[in-house]
C-alpha cells in the first residue's frame, strides 16, 4: 500500500468514525443509533487492521478481529436486547435540543483539535494528525451522557466515549499492550452487561428507563 493511499484510507476511516458519532447525536431513533454504533465498530476494526498493515504486526490483526467481534457484534446485540425488552423506540426530548447539540459538537471538536496540538507535536505523522478525531469522539460521548435521558442512550454515550479512547489508542500508540487491551475490553463488556441488567431492573422498579426517575437519593 502506498503512503498516499494509506493516508487517504486512514482519513476516510477517521472521518467515518467522527461522522457516526455526530449522527448519533442527531438521530433520536434508538434503533438507528445502535446501527450507527455497529458502523462505528466496523470502522474501528478497520482502523486497527490499517495500523496492522502499516506496522505489519499480526498482533494488531488479532486485535482488529477482537474489536470487530466486541464492538460491531456483541455490544450492539446486547443493546438491541435492551431495546427490545424496553419497548421504547425513541429517545425522549433530550436535555439540550438537537440544534444546540450539533453546535456544541462543533465546539467540542474544535476543542479536541486545540487539545491535540501538543500530542501531534510529539511525533508528527499522518496517523497522529488524526488524533483530534479520537478526542472529539470522547468529548461527544461525554456530551451524550450528560444530555440524553434514556438509560440506553447513556450506555451508547459510554460506548461512544470508549470508542473514542480506542481510536485514540490506535492512532497514538498503535494499540496498548495486549494484556491491557484484553483487560479493557473485558471491563467494557462487563460494564455494558451490568448496565443491561440494571436497565432491566430499572424497568421492573420504575416501569420505564427514563433516568429522570432516578431522583430518590438526594440531599
Amino acid at each position, binding site marked *: 500500500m502506498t503512503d498516499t493511499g494509506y493516508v487517504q484510507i486512514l482519513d476516510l476511516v477517521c472521518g467515518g468514525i467522527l461522522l457516526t458519532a455526530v449522527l448519533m447525536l442527531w438521530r433520536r431513533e434508538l434503533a438507528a443509533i445502535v446501527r450507527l454504533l455497529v458502523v462505528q465498530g466496523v470502522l474501528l476494526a478497520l482502523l486497527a487492521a490499517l495500523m496492522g498493515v502499516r506496522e505489519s504486526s499480526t498482533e494488531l490483526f488479532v486485535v482488529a478481529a477482537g474489536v470487530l467481534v466486541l464492538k460491531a457484534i456483541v455490544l450492539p446485540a446486547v443493546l438491541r436486547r435492551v431495546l427490545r425488552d424496553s419497548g421504547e423506540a425513541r429517545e425522549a426530548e433530550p436535555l439540550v435540543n438537537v440544534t444546540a447539540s450539533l453546535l456544541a459538537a462543533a465546539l467540542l471538536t474544535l476543542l479536541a483539535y486545540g487539545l491535540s496540538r501538543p500530542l501531534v*507535536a*510529539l511525533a508528527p505523522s499522518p496517523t497522529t494528525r488524526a488524533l483530534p478525531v479520537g478526542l472529539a469522539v470522547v468529548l461527544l460521548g461525554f456530551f451524550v451522557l450528560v444530555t440524553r435521558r434514556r438509560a440506553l442512550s447513556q450506555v451508547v454515550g459510554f460506548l461512544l466515549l470508549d470508542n473514542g479512547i480506542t481510536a485514540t*489508542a490506535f492512532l497514538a500508540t498503535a494499540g*496498548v499492550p495486549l*494484556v491491557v487491551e484484553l483487560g479493557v475490553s*473485558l471491563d467494557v463488556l462487563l460494564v455494558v452487561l451490568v*448496565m443491561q441488567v440494571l436497565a432491566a431492573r430499572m424497568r421492573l422498579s420504575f416501569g420505564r428507563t427514563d433516568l429522570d426517575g432516578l431522583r430518590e437519593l438526594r440531599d
Partner: protein
Amino acid sequence: MMAISEMVHAAAASGPAATAVLLAPMLAPLVAASAAVLVGWRRAVSWSAVAASVVILVSGVLAAVATADGSVLTVGGTLRADALTAVMLLVIGVVAVIATWSGVSYIDQELAAGHTDGRGARRYGVLVPMFLTAMVLAVLASNLGVMWAAIEATTIVTAFLVGHRGGRQAVEATWKYVMICSVGIALAYLGTVLVYYASQHAGIGEQGSLDWSVLVANADQLDPGVMRVAVPLLVLGFGTKAGLMPMHSWLPDAHSQAPAPVSALMSGVLLSVAVYALLRYRVVAVAALDLQFVRSLILVVALASVALAASMLLAQRDYKRLLAYSSIEHMGLVMIGVAVGTPLAVTALLLHILGHGLAKAVLFCASGQILASEGTTQISGVRGLLARQPVLAGTFALGVAALLGLPPFSIFVSELALARAAADAGLAWAVAVALVLLLVVFVAVAGHTAGMLFGGDAAGQRPPHTPPHTPSLPRVAAAPLVTGLIALAVLGVVAWPLEQLLDAASAIAGTS
C-alpha cells in the same frame, strides 16, 4: 523480629517465597469466592472470607517486613511489591478483616430480618472476596494499564453489592455508581493511553512501556506537552474512584445503599486504592512536568472536595450519607498530601489512609448495626442511643471522635503531620483553608452525632416508629469494631513498627 526479617529476605531472594507472598492475597479470596459459589452462604463460608482477609493482612505484614528496607519483590513481570505496595496491602488487609468479620453477623441479621435471601447472601459471599482480589491486584500490578483494569474491575464487582438490598433506591444508586465511575475511569484510561504514547517517544524503546518502574526511571524523558494533557485526565479519572470533586456524586448514594461491610470496604480501601494510583502517577508526573503545575491541579481538586464535603455535611440528614461525605472530606485531605508530596506528606497521607480506613470500617459497620436496631438511616430518627445501646453507641462515638481527628486516634497525628508538611512546603494558606473547613466539618458532624447519641431514654424522646430495640450488640458484631478502635488508638500513639515502613514508602513516592 530480626529473625523473621532475615527469613523473609532469604525467601525473597529465592523466587517462590516472593511468589507466595504476592499470589496468596489474590488467590485466597478467590478460594473463598469459589466456596461461596459452590455451597452458598454457610457459617464456614462466611468465615472463609475472614480467613482470606487475614491472609491478605499476613501477606501485607510479610511484604512490609521484606520491603521496609527499600527492596522490591517481583513475580514475573506483572506483580511487584515495594514498601508503598506493602502499606496498601496492610490497609486492605486490616479493613478487610474488620469488614468481613462484621459481615458474618451482618448477613445473618439480614437473613433473619428477611432483607435478603439465600441468593443474595450467596452473591454477597462471592462478590466480596472478588472485590478484595481486584483491589489486591490493583496495588500489586506493576503495569499501570493492568492497575487501571483492576480498578475498573472493582466497579463491576461491587455494582451488585451496592444493589444488594434491591428496590428502586438500590437500582438508582447502582446505576449512578456504575455510570459515573465507568465514565471517570474511562478518562483515566485515556490518560493512561497518552502516558503510553509519551513513553513510546521517551527513549525506552519503540514499544514504550506502562511498567511503573520503567516509567519512573525515564520520567524526565516524557514529553511535557503530552503529559500536561494526560495528568489532568488521570487526576479526574482516578479522582472519580477516589470520590473527589467534580466526579464525587456517586459516592454518597453508593455508600448509603451498599451493605455496611461493603460500604466499609469501599470507603476504607477502594477510595484509597484510587489515591494509590494517583500517588504512583504523581512520581512520574512531577519528574516530567514542573512541580507547580501538578501541585496546583491536585490542590484545587483536593480543597474543592473538602469544601464540598463540608457544605454537604452541614445540613445532612442521613447518617450513612454523612459518613460518605466524610470520606470525600478525608480523601480531599489525603490529596492535599499528594499535592504537597514531600516525604513527610507522603508518610502522613499513608498513615491517614490507614487511619481513615480503620475508622470508616468501624463506623460503617456500626452504622449497619444502628440501622438494624433503629430501622432508619435518618439522623433525626435516632435519639438517645447511648442510653439504650451503650456498646454500639460507644463504638460509634469513638469512631466519630477518631474521624474528627481527636487523639489518641491516629488521624489526629496524620492530619497534624499533613499540616506541617504543607506549611513546610510553603502552602500555609492551603492549611488555613483546610483547617477552617475541617472546623465546619467538625461542628457539623459533632452536632449530628450528638443528636443521635446523647439524651435520656425517656419514652417521649423516641419516635414512635422505632422497633423495640435489640437489648445489646451481639459479641461477634462488637468484637471487630472494638478491635478496629484499639488498632486505631495504638497507631496514633505508638510509632515503632510502622514508621520504618512508612518512611520507606515515602522514599518511593515522595519528592522534595
